[in-house]
Each structure stands twice: as C-alpha cells, then as structure tokens.
C-alpha cells in the first residue's frame, strides 16, 4: 500500500515537471507544446553526451545539461515559434509536433536508438533506499520528488511576486497589448520556453539516470499532456493535483489491470475530464472560447 503511494508520488513528480512545461508554454504562446516529451529525451541525451565528455564530474555535467536544455527552449522559440506569432493556434501546435519529429530524428541520427545509461559516465550510483513503513525507492526517485517540489515553489514565487513574472502573465494573456506597454513579449516568451525546456530537461536527466535513456522516452510527454489538461491548461497550481490523480490511476491499473491498460489510462482520464469539465480542475472557463 505504502509502496503504491510512493510510486505514485514519484510518477506524479515526473508528470508534474512535464506538466509545468506544458502550462508555461500554454500561458505564453497559447500553444500546446506536443514536443515536450522530446525535450525530456533531449535533456537526457545532453546529460549523456556531457557525462561522456566530462566523465566522473557530475558537478559539471548536470548544470551544463540543464543549461543546454534551457538554451534549446530559447532557440526553439526564436526559430520556430516566433514566426508563428500571427498564425492560428492549430498551426502552431502542429509546428510543435514537427519539432518533436525533428528532435527525435536528430537524436536517432546522432546517438542511434541504442539504450544508454548516463549514470555510469557520471560516476554516480542509484542505490535503493528503504523508507519507514517498508516502501523502497531509488535515490533518483527521491531526487525527482524534491526537484519537482522546488521547481514549483520557485515558479509560484516568480510569477506572483516578481515584476518580470507579472509581465510574463500579462504577455501571456495579450501579447500585443503587452507590447504596446513596452514589454518585449518575444523576450518574455523565450524565457517561458526556456523554463519549460529546463523543466523537461531536468525530468529527462533524472529519468535517464533512474531507469535508462532511449529515444522512445518521448511517449511520456504525450501522457503528461493529459495531466496538464486535467489540471487546467493555464493553471500551474492545477498541475500538482492532476499529476497525482493521473499517476494514481496509472499505478492502480498496472496493479489491477494489464500494462496496455496503464498505457492508455492517462488518455482515459483526459477523456473523462474533457467530457465532464473541459477546462480542467483549476483552469479558467473562458479558455475554452479563446481557442
């Protein structure tokens, strides 16, 4: 029982990191970034490449990999999303799909689709830890939970209290109006994409150290968008409960159902949510009309 709970928390943290990326991008560009899963994979591969370049120096590889992910977000925005500024939302979402395709092709091209384990090059290990009550988690499971919690706390403070955060929310609501008030919304949006890619990259780094690294990890991204929708596409606060709910359903369906069912369970949650409360747990109702 406790094991199921802890596993749920770990899975929920992964989904929360990805979900934060979805919400950040949605609030700025009004786009569902369907390449978020590939940003996760990319983060893992950045870590792998840097760990191979600087073996045994995690203090160098980890921050550099995170930075590389953030920079990727900026580049993606400037090259791909900024030209889509006037186009309909649907087209911009498709551009993210093509981005995902390109990222995946690029990764397979450079790294082939063999399974990798960056942990070895990093010189770190992932020992299991026993929690009081009999549950067992790996070290990186705990790292995942802590990272997700810290990131969310940081984002809340930033968006609510700091001037740049208010500008980001303003630009997210109405970019042109923000521009007329002197806010360079391209800079602000690039920042939101950087943060989203950063969150995804972190998730990828932890995931690949925890389990393994291979190009097909991007399916996690598709499952996580169900989380973003269940919580409310424009609500950062909604991601947390949604992640827990979807993770719980998934863990339970592995236990009492079969693996195929657990693969499709986030989509079932998504469908249920769309039918009973399309704007999600904490999303704004008006969002339905804006798209």
């Amino acid at each position: 029982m406790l094991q199921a709970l802890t596993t749920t928390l770990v899975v929920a943290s992964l989904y929360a990191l990805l979900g934060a990326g979805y919400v950040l991008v949605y609030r700025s560009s009004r786009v569902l970034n369907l390449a978020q899963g590939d940003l996760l994979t990319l983060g893992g591969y950045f870590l792998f490449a840097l760990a191979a370049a600087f073996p045994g120096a995690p203090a160098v590889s980890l921050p550099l990999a995170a930075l590389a992910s953030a920079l990727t977000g900026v580049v993606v925005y400037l090259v791909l999303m900024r030209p889509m500024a006037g186009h309909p939302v649907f087209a911009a979402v498709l551009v993210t799909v093509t981005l995902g395709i390109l990222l995946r092709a690029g990764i397979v091209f450079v790294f082939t689709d063999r399974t990798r384990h960056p942990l070895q090059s990093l010189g770190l290990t992932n020992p299991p830890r026993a929690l009081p009550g009999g549950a067992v988690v790996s070290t990186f499971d705990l790292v995942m939970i802590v990272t997700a919690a810290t990131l969310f706390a940081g984002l809340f403070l930033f968006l609510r209290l700091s001037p740049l955060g208010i500008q980001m929310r303003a630009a997210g609501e109405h970019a042109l109006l923000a521009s007329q008030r002197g806010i360079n919304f391209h800079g602000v949006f690039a920042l939101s994409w950087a943060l989203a890619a950063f969150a995804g990259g972190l998730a990828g780094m932890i995931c690949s150290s925890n389990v393994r690294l291979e190009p097909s990890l991007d399916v996690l991204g598709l499952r996580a968008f169900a989380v973003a929708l269940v919580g409310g596409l424009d609500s950062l606060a909604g991601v947390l409960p949604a992640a827990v709910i979807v993770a719980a359903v998934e863990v339970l369906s592995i236990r009492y159902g079969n693996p195929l069912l657990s693969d499709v369970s986030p989509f079932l949650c998504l469908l249920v949510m769309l039918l009973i409360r399309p704007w999600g747990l904490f999303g704004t109702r008006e969002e339905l009309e804006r798209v």
Partner: protein
Amino acid sequence: MALGGGYFKTSHEADLAVVDTRLRRTALAVLVLALLVLPRVASSFVLDLASQAALAAIGALALNVLTGLAGQISLGHAGFLAAGAFTTAALVERGLASPLLTLPATALVGALLGLIVGIPSLRLKGLYLALGTLAMHHVVLYVAGEMQARAGGNTGFTIPPPALGSLVLRGTVGWYYALVLAAALVLVLVVNLQRSRAGRAWMAIRDRDVAAASVGIHVARYKLAAFVWSSVVTALAGTLFAYQRGFVSVEAFGFFLAIEYIAMIIIGGLGSALGAVLGAGLVTLLPYAIDAVVAALSPGAADYYIFPAKFGAFGLLMALFLVFEPLGLVGIWRRVRNWFLLWPFRHRPLRAS
C-alpha cells in the same frame, strides 16, 4: 486569400460552377485522359505509387471535410483507418471475407465511431477538441491492440484479396484503376458537398458557430454529421487499405499516421479539396523522393540513417509550410494566380475608376 482583380460572378450557375473557364475545362479533360492512359506507359512501381497516393487522397479528402470544411480539428484520423482495417480483419477471421459484407459493416462501425468521437465536439472547440480526438485515437488503438494480441497472434492479420463471385481484384493495374476510381468518386462527392447546403452550413460553423446557430443552422446535428461522414469514408478507406496490403497490424496505425494525414491537408491547403489531393500526393511521394536523393548523394549510406532522414525531412517540410505558407500548396497557387490576375498592377486599386 483575397482574389485579386475585378472578377464578379453574375449568375447563380456561375457561382455554383466547379469548372468555370475554358482553360480549366481543357485542363481537367487532359488530366482525366492522362490518368486513364498511365498504366500503358508507366512501370508498376509508379502505378503502385499512384495507387498509394489515391488511397491517401481518400483519407485526406475525408479529413479535409471534417477539419478544413467543418472546422472540427481531428488528430485521431488514424484511429478511423484502423477501425476500418480491423473490422475487416475481424470479419475475415470469422470467414466473412466478401466485400459485400465487409464494406457495409465497416461503414456502420465507422459511423458509430464517428458519432462517439463527435460527441465531445458539441462541447469542445479547437485545441481541446484536437486533444480529445487524440485521446480517442489512443483508445481505439488500445482496443485494436487487445484484439490483435488475443486473436491474430502478435504479428497481425492476413487479408485475402477481395472477391465478388469469380471477379478477384488483384495486381497493380487492377488496384490502380480501382483506387483512382474510388478517389475520383470521393473527390466529386466532396466538391459537391462544398456547394451543397451541408457544405455551407459546415463553413458557417467553422467560421463562427455562434453566428451559425443564430441563423438557424442546427449546429450539433451538422457537427456530428461531419464526424460521421468523415469517419465512414475513412473507415472504408481503411478497408481498401487492408485489402490492398493484404495484412493488418496495429503498428501501421500509430500517431505518425495521423500526423501524416494532417500534413497532407496542411501542405495541400486547408479547406480545399484540390489541396487535399495535392497534399496526399506530395506526402506519399516524399519518402521515395528522399530515398532517391539519399541514394544519389551517398550510395552506401547506412540504413539507420535513412529512417531519421525521412522522418526529419518530413518534419522539416511540414514546419516550412506551417511557418511560411499556412495555406499550403493551394495558397501558393492562389498567390501565383493573383499575380497574373493583377498584372501589371501591384495592388487592387481603391476605386474601380
């Protein structure tokens, strides 16, 4: 896109006409002739390519009616194809392989599925609808996967060629004619739909469904009709797909296939039947074109470069179209046409004096 120049249609017939100038009529005749004569001059590889393009065109036209005409964004198109193919497979498993049975059964299954998938569209729009259809697509694939795991053994189902009494449809030339004919039928159907009351209602719903409701269009009924129509045609295309390939397995119907179809209507041009056909042709030919290019550039390229190269080139092409010409090939065509129509003036002047 705005039509440059001072052309005005002055009668109802002119407004409804599909081919309205002499040049267009001649071009159409030439095209029909070329299609009929093609098997005499082309190799079977080319014919096979043409057949694939025709089959893709059927699905693209159906998706265009749903997304381009009625404005209901659907990312789960591959699910309908899979439904058609797997219904056929299920019937074949039970020994009912005749097309007289499978086609109506597929149509029925397609209609039901379209109805189910269409219900969220009554509440949702745009992005949310797209997500809903995507989720549905995964559910359909899950069901198909379960079916395959239980019955077909994990590799898939074999389908015998369709037979009506003693007439069996097999061979490249036979399938070419069958598929091109089917595609032509669907094209005529779609073009007529665009000019019909249903087509106008769909366009009204696409542009502003609240305004459409306020002029008396029964929005819910038409939305569901769009989904049902589109899914029936696509499911039938799935059956043809199953018969032509002779083999059905769930791997062929992943998310990428749905994206391919979306790419077809985007690259071709949203809302245009011509665009759907052009897009289908381009997307079908693309992998072969890339094969040819890669073979020409680096003859000994390792196989594992080919797959990401195709994948990547496809993504790049789609991205280029989305960023630079969201109205697709038809948009490019219209720009060229406007240039000719307006020449030597750059812009349409303010007053017709």
